């Protein structure tokens, strides 16, 4: 059936590969003399050889001895099958981190998750599921993959370099006997036709040579070049990423309107730095003059953010200037980049203690909990006397009390209120232990009550509240906005970008170039042509040869009986 004939014709049928795999000696080396199989594929094939010369690892018997086993391990590791399996393993290993919350991304979510899953949580934590991309099992997969990649690139490069210098392949059998050969009546003297055929193929950017009465033509060498470029660029990406994460750093700090941040380690709220980070930070400071936010007030997406803009004053050794930071417009200062990564409200409060002294005054940063910026926070007043004081609760920009307690109806501070509970306790020596800024450490304190109920303060800006038992006075002076600035440096970013672009370009070349071989034979008033598309999934050599034949004035004889 014609269908099956055609299948035989496609150069890379399944059995084809197997044949090639067998044609290669066990050590994976390639024969010096290109040996052409019947469909025109050589073991030395550029563009295919890389894959073809690799024997299926499972079929290589492990030879004896230490060196033998090493060789075997290397053959297994660099086989194409192993590459596929490692790629799929990498995909699988990346999944847990795409499902479970990750510590470096969202430590708070991890804590919550662990609190909700007391049975499975600790086990998953132990095997690194909450920092999956830094675990030994994840790293070993991608490291193996890259070793395999190197093991793959090196031999393929030398095969490619040899192929580049090789002349166009000769037909594996007489052209007239190749599968899919077409015969024509020669319309002109053989020599003339052959010369014109050579020219026609050259014009189509084939590499051409004459072997006897056959014109051999081959093209598509850039496919393997693109492929090698892609794989080398991939190595480049990995190395540039590694370089950047070793030497780079990233930290963040909350800055309230009117306050500043100077780029020193002590001013960061949190920082992560690469193992080779030298602690050198670009000298600059940023003062937050104002933070502008606009929210959607229309019916559609009501409350969605429409604008974030931080007006800042930047001071560097070379002077002071006014600037602004927006979500997609970070500041670049030296090798540092300053991004706006969060925002919220700070309640400005004043707390007078039982003795009438101001024990605390200033903005207190509240942490947003939802999209309407219901925010949680704590006011720690360790210096209050006779009793130290603590308050904690919510800041609600547009306050309302619903069935579930106080809520915020809109992210803009339209009717802000503070809802607080209060605590008091005997003075305590500074422990120096870091405390969460957003929750109160109530050990050693008792919650204040009034008329037998827990005391709840509800304050609008300007309101004051007298604490019971002469403990003090709390005043809600007003509110300010704060922003979270992230300062990061990532050396080698340009190199990452360059390698990524190189990889994309190499891949595009490799996946679009169609390596082909074509042969045209003219002898004794007859002509034959045959061709081979040498890459799976590509076709069209037939059309190209037909066009050449037409150009040469070759005519197909009428179909025989």
């Amino acid at each position, binding site marked *: 059936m014609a269908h099956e004939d055609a299948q035989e014709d496609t150069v890379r049928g399944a059995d084809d590969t197997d044949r090639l795999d067998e044609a290669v000696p066990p050590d994976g080396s390639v024969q010096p003399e290109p040996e052409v199989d019947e469909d025109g594929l050589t073991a030395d094939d550029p563009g295919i050889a890389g894959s073809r010369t690799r024997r299926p690892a499972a079929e290589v018997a492990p030879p004896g001895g230490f060196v033998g086993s090493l060789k075997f391990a290397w053959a297994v590791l660099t086989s194409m099958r192993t590459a596929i399996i490692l790629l799929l393993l990498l995909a699988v290993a990346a999944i847990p981190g*795409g499902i479970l919350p990750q510590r470096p991304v969202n430590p708070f979510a991890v804590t919550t998750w662990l609190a909700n899953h007391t049975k499975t949580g600790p086990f998953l934590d132990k095997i690194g599921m909450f920092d999956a991309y830094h675990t030994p099992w994840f790293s070993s997969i991608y490291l193996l993959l890259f070793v395999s990649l190197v093991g793959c690139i090196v031999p393929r490069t030398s095969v490619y370099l040899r192929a580049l210098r090789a002349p166009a392949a000769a037909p594996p059998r007489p052209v007239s006997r190749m599968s899919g050969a077409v015969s024509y009546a020669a319309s002109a003297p053989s020599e003339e036709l052959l010369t014109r055929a050579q020219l026609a193929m050259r014009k189509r950017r084939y590499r051409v040579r004459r072997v006897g009465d056959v014109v051999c033509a081959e093209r598509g060498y850039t496919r393997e070049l693109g492929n090698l470029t892609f794989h080398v660029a991939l190595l480049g990406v990995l190395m540039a990423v590694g370089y950047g994460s070793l030497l780079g750093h990233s930290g963040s700090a909350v800055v309230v309107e009117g306050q500043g941040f100077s780029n020193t380690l002590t001013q960061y709220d949190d920082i992560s730095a690469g193992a080779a980070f030298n602690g050198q930070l670009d000298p600059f400071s940023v003062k937050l003059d104002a933070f502008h936010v606009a929210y959607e007030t229309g019916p559609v997406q009501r409350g969605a953010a429409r604008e974030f803009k931080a007006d800042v004053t930047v001071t560097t050794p070379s002077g002071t200037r006014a600037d602004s930071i927006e979500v997609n417009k970070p500041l670049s200062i030296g090798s540092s980049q300053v991004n706006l*990564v969060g925002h919220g409200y700070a309640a400005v409060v004043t707390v007078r203690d039982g003795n009438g002294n101001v024990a605390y005054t200033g903005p207190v940063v509240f942490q947003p909990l939802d999209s309407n910026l219901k925010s949680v926070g704590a006011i720690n007043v360790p210096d209050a006397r006779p009793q130290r004081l603590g308050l904690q609760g919510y800041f609600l920009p547009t306050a309302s009390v619903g069935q579930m307690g106080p809520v915020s109806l809109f992210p803009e501070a339209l009717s802000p209120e503070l809802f607080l509970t209060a605590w008091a306790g005997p003075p305590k020596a500074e422990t120096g232990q870091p405390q969460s800024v957003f929750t109160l450490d109530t050990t050693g304190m008792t919650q204040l009550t009034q008329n037998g109920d827990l005391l709840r303060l509800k304050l609008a800006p300007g309101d004051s509240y007298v604490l019971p038992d002469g403990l003090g006075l709390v005043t809600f002076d007003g509110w300010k906005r704060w922003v979270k600035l992230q300062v990061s440096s990532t050396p080698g970013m340009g190199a990452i970008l360059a390698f990524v672009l190189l990889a994309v370009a190499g891949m595009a070349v490799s996946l679009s170039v169609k390596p082909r071989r074509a042969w045209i034979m003219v002898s004794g008033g007859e002509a034959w042509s045959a061709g081979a598309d040498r890459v799976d999934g590509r076709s069209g050599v037939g059309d190209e040869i037909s066009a050449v034949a037409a150009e040469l004035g070759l005519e197909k004889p009428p179909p025989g009986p």
Partner: protein
Amino acid sequence: MTVASFSALAVVTAAVLYLLALSLHALEWAMARHVEVSTASVATGTKGGVAVLDKPSDTAVRPEKADMYGRMGFSLTILAAAVNVAGIVARGIAAHRAPWGNMYEFITTAAVVVAVLYVLGVWKWHLRWLGLPVTLLGAVLNGLAATVFYVAVAPLVPALHSVWFMIHILAAIISGAAFSIGGVAAILYLVVARAERRGTVKGYLAMLPGSDGIDRISYRVLAFAFPLWTFTIAAGAIWAEYAWGRYWGWDPKETWSLVAWVVFAGYLHARATAGWRGTRAAWLAILGFALFWWNFIGVNLVFAGLHSYAGI
């Protein structure tokens, strides 16, 4: 009628038109159920020495009725695509911005790109045999968009105000559309290859180009999509660097994009490896296709990452 409501109506209309086209293609398949032998093979004679497998027969004996329904289905698909395009253009006009700012807009545009790629494919490579799965995609995507993902026109949140975002999202839409076509072609491949193995190629299957031809089309579309998807991820990383100060942060969206990318890389390797080509490679293509849509729909709805796209 406002421009916005015209747009919404157009998307619903497009969904209905795709559905009608789908029914016509279903009739086409039904009408061909008596075809016994592969008519495709008749046309795959030798042409300049090498068989041309990816063109199903246009000349061979096709049941006339099947052919008629097929042509009607295709005409209706073109109409559906035109209405779909009109809906998206109107959406952009109503919103005063590129219409790729939320899931609804993403999905409707992806449906258009599927249809456009298909029409181009019919024109250049005789891909009309993909009519049934393609119109199914068009109907499902627009139908889901209109029912589940519909949101009224609104401006973008600040995080999306970036050229890189627009480049990123457009590349994602086109790759997604191409992955979808490659994916449904891979499904057809499995069906036909199975029938070929069992020697039961008949009915409409016999009018398809044969497993090799289907495989080749699937590969071509995926080979186009894969570099574009790589570029999508790279453009997303550039945008993330501007927006969040890190180009890669293992956000769920980023992670699942990488998973899909790695699976497609596995597919490309599988095709070049004995023992993996054919069926296994096709499964990888289908897995990649599923991962793409899971990453877009599932991850958006299930995990709240940094992506402002999250949530409908």
